[in-house]
C-alpha cells in the first residue's frame, strides 16, 4: 500500500475518532487501521510504508517510585534502575488489523545496540533483561486483560494467564507469534494475535480496546517508559480504535473465521468420535446417545452452508460469535455434555448397582 494512501486513511480515521471523542486530547485513541496485506515479521514492517506513519511514540517515564515497588511482584523480575545520565530512547508502536488478526509492531531505538548485542553471550548481561510488557484489554468493560513479557534480545516470551481457560478465555501462549530482530537503530519486535485467540472480540463494527507497552531498559540503566499507565493499570492504558471494515472486508473476516472454526470443529469431532466410540477406553453409550447426535447436528449445520467452506455465501453465513463458539470450543461442549450425562447417571442410582 502506498504511504500516501495509508496516511490519508489514518488522517480520515483519526479525524473521525477525534470528532467522536469526549476524552481529553491526550486520551484520544490511537487508530488501528484495517490493512488488507499487513506486513508479517520485523523486516516486512521495516520495509513497509507503515513505519513511515507516526505510530504512537507518546511514551513517558515510568515513575521511579512506582517502578521500585515492582520488586514486590514475585512473578516477574524487572531491572528498573535508572541512571540520571541515561538519555531517553525513542519507542514507537504501530498496530493494524485485518481478517487474519491483530498486528503490533514495536521499534525500540537503542544507541548502544551493537554493544548490547556483543554482550549477550554473558548469561548475566543486562541486555538479556531488556523487556517489554505488553498489556491489552479487548474492549473497555467486563473483558479479560492479557499480559505478555517479551525479551527482544533473547527471543523469550512469557504470557500470564489472568483469565482461566474456559469457553470465553484461552491462553494467548498457544496462538501469538512474536519475532524480534536487531536493527541498526535498536530492535524491532513484531507481534501477531490471530482472531482464533479472540474470536468473540472480532471488531466487525469497529471497537475500542486498551493497549499499553512498557519498556524496561536495564542495559543502559535507562529505567522504564510506558505508553499508558503502570503495570496492570488498565484504566490508564492507551485507547486503541479499530477501524470498522468495509462490507467486503467484513465479509472476508466472517468467512475466514467461520472457516477456521469449522476446520477446528471437524478435527475435534473426529478425535472425539475415535476416542468416545472406543469400547475399551471410551463410552459408546455416551457417544451414541449424546455426543454423536451433537456432532451430526453441527456437521449438518456446517454442510448446509455449502460443501466447500471457501465458497460459503454472505447471505447464508450464521452469526460469527455464536457459531465460532460452538465450533472452536467443541472440546468444552463435549465436557458440558459429558458432565450433564454423568450427573444424570448419578441420579439414577439403581443403574449403578
Amino acid at each position, binding site marked *: 500500500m502506498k504511504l500516501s494512501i495509508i496516511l490519508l486513511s489514518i488522517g480520515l480515521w483519526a479525524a473521525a475518532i477525534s470528532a467522536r471523542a469526549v476524552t481529553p486530547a491526550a486520551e484520544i485513541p490511537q487508530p488501528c487501521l484495517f490493512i488488507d496485506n499487513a506486513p508479517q515479521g520485523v523486516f516486512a514492517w521495516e520495509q513497509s510504508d507503515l513505519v513511515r506513519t507516526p505510530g504512537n511514540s507518546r511514551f513517558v517515564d515510568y515513575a521511579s517510585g512506582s517502578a521500585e515497588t515492582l520488586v514486590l511482584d514475585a*512473578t516477574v523480575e524487572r531491572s528498573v534502575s535508572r541512571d540520571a545520565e541515561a538519555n531517553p530512547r525513542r519507542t514507537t508502536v504501530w498496530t493494524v488489523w485485518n481478517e487474519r488478526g491483530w498486528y503490533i509492531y514495536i521499534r525500540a531505538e537503542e544507541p548502544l545496540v551493537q554493544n548490547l548485542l556483543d554482550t549477550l553471550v554473558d548469561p548475566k548481561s543486562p541486555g538479556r533483561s531488556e523487556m517489554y510488557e505488553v498489556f491489552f484489554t479487548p474492549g473497555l468493560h467486563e473483558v479479560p486483560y492479557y499480559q505478555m513479557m517479551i525479551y527482544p534480545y533473547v527471543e523469550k516470551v512469557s504470557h500470564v494467564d489472568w*483469565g482461566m481457560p474456559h469457553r470465553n478465555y484461552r491462553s494467548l501462549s498457544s496462538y501469538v507469534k512474536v519475532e524480534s530482530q536487531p536493527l541498526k537503530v535498536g530492535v524491532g519486535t513484531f507481534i501477531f494475535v490471530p482472531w482464533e485467540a479472540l474470536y468473540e472480540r472480532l471488531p466487525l463494527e469497529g471497537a475500542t480496546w486498551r493497549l499499553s507497552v512498557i519498556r524496561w531498559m536495564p542495559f543502559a540503566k535507562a529505567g522504564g517508559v510506558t505508553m499508558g499507565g503502570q503495570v*496492570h493499570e488498565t484504566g490508564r492504558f492507551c485507547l486503541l480504535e479499530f477501524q470498522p471494515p468495509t462490507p467486503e472486508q467484513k465479509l472476508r473476516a466472517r468467512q475466514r473465521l467461520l472457516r477456521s472454526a469449522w476446520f477446528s470443529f471437524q478435527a475435534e469431532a473426529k478425535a472425539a468420535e475415535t476416542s468416545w466410540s472406543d469400547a475399551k477406553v471410551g463410552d459408546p453409550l455416551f457417544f451414541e446417545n449424546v455426543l454423536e447426535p451433537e456432532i451430526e447436528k453441527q456437521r449438518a449445520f456446517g454442510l448446509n452452508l455449502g460443501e466447500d467452506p471457501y465458497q460459503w455465501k454472505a447471505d447464508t453465513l450464521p452469526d460469527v460469535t455464536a457459531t465460532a463458539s460452538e465450533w472452536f470450543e467443541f472440546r468444552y461442549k463435549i465436557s458440558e455434555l459429558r458432565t450433564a450425562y454423568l450427573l444424570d447417571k448419578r441420579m439414577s442410582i439403581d443403574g449403578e448397582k
Partner: protein
Amino acid sequence: MNPTIKPLSLHLALSLAVAPPGAADTRTPEKPDLYAVPALSSIPRMPDRIPSDAVTDRTLRMTAAKGEYEPVSFLIHPRSDLPKLEMKATALTGQSGTIPAEEIDIKLVKVWYQAGTGWYSYFADTARRELIPELLLNDDSLIRVDHEKKENYLRVGKEYRSISYPASEATEGFNYLVEPVADSETLQPVNLKAGQNQQVWITVRVPKETPEGVYQGEVQLWHNGKALDAVKLLVRVLPFELPDPKTYYNLENDYLVTLYSTSVLTYKPELFGTTAKALESIQTKIFENLRKHNISHPRLSTAGMYAINAPETVALMKREFALMKAAGFSTKPLITDGWSYPKPNEMDNPERTHQRIDGLDTALRELVDHDDIYVSSWDEAGPDRIRIMREVQEYTAKHGLKLWMTTHKERHFEMAGYLIDFANHGGFADRENVRQWHTVGAKVGSYAGPHTGPENPDVFRRWEGFARYKENYDASFNYKYFSQLHSTLWKKNKQNVWNDFAGGTFRQFNLVYPTPAGMIDTIAWEGFREGIDDVRYATKLKQEAERAIREGDVDARLAAKKALMKLELMDGRTADLNHVRQEMIESILGIRAAMKK
C-alpha cells in the same frame, strides 16, 4: 474523606433499596424466571444479563461425598419488583435417610464495585471500577452499592461508611478487630428489582453418616408469607468419604494445604483497643472457617515472635496450638513462622541467634511428639541474605528443625538447595521447578501464582487444586487469607481491608473479609475449597486404583490402570473442572464395582 451516611439519607440518596411494600399491598407478584448455573465458573453472574451457561432448569443437581461441602447455584430473574423475598430450604429426603435443612446453607451473592482488574488479578487498577460478584451474605444490606457513583458502603453498627475512597481521602484506618461489622446469622429477606438478577449460592454439607443415595428437597421462595416458587434440589450422596489430599506423584505424601496470614493472636491487644479474649474469639472463628475450607496445616504464626518476648511467645504458641488442635487440624508436620535467620540485634553475635534457636526448638518440641517441624527464614531473600541464612540454617538443621522458605528460580536452589526442606516457589505452578527441588528431597509449594485477590472462583479452584496437583506440587501455600492490619503502621497507613480503591501496587488480598463476628466468605474462597476437593477426589481415585492393583483380579487391575491413565490425560491447566470431577467419580465407582465382582 470517608464519609459516614446515615441509613435514611443513604436510602434516599442511592435509591437502591426497593421501596418497602405498602401495608395494604398483598398482591402476589409474578413468578420470577429461575436459571440453574454452575456455581464454580469463570463467567461472572451479573445483574443485567443471563450468562451463557445458564439453563432454565428448576432442578439443581449435585454429587457429594459423605462429609463433603458442595455448592450449587441459581439465578433469580424477577419479572417485577420482589420486595422482601424470603428463601428457605427443606430437608432432603432419600430412601435411606434425611439430610436436615440445617445442613443447607443459602447465601446471596453480593455484586459490588471493585478495582478494574478485580475479577482477574491481584494488581491494583484504581483507574477503573467494575461491578463484580464476590461476597456471600445472609444480609444483602450489609453492603449498599451506589451505581451512579460506583461506590460501596459498609454497615458499621447502625451507620453506613464509604469503603470506596482513594488513599488521598482516607482519614483513618479501619480496625476490623473491633468495628461492629456483622453479617446476619441467618438468611434475611432480600429486595429484588425487576430485571435485575440475583445469584443464590447454596452449600450443602453432607453429614458423614449419611447413607449413599439420592436425596431430594427444595429451596423455596416466599413472599408475604406465601410460597411463590421453588427449585428442586437433588443430591446424590456417594458411597465414600474423601481422604486427606495426597500428592499426585506419591500417594504416601501429604498434599499440604496452608495459607499465609491466618493468625490474629500475634496482635498486641492494647495496640488495637481490644482484649486477648476478643482476639482469641476471632482466632477460633478463623480456624473454624479454615477447617471448613480444606486448610489442613495452618501455620503456627506466633513462633516468629520468640525473639521478641520468649516467655509470652511460648504461652501464646501453646494457646494457638491448642486452638488449632481443637479445630481439628493436623499438626504433623508443624509449620511455623519461627525465624531461622539472625535478627538485626544478632547480626554481630551468632551466639545470640543460636541461643534463640535453642529456645525455640525446645518450645516447639513441647508442643508435638514428632520431629516434623518447619521454621522459616527471610522472605524472598536475595543472594546476600541467602549466604547469611545458610550459616544460621546449618545450625538450625543440627537441631533437626526443617526449613521452609520462599524461593526463586536460579537463586535459592543453586545457593542453598541442600538446606531448604520446603521451597515455597514464587510464581505460577511449574513442573520443571518442582522436579529440581524433588531431586534433593524437598517439598514444593507455590505462592503468587496468583496471589489471593482475584474474585473469579475458578482461579483458586484450578491453581490451588488440580493444576498445581498435576504439576507434582506438595502443597498449596498461598499469600494470603486476608489483608491484615500492620501491627504498628495500620493507623498511619489508614488501612481498610474493605476498600479496594486505596491504590498502591496491589489490591486487597482477601479470600474472606474479617469481622469480630466471624469471617465473611467469598466465591473465590469457595473456589479454593472446591480446588482442594478436586485433589481429594483424585487422591481417592488413586487410592482405589492402588488397592485394586494390589488386591483385585485382572479385570479390577485393568479398570484401575485405565482410571489412572484417564487421570493423567486430564489437562490440569485447561480441562473443564466440573467435567474432571464427574469423570473422577465415574472412575472411582467403576473401580469399586470391578472390585465387587
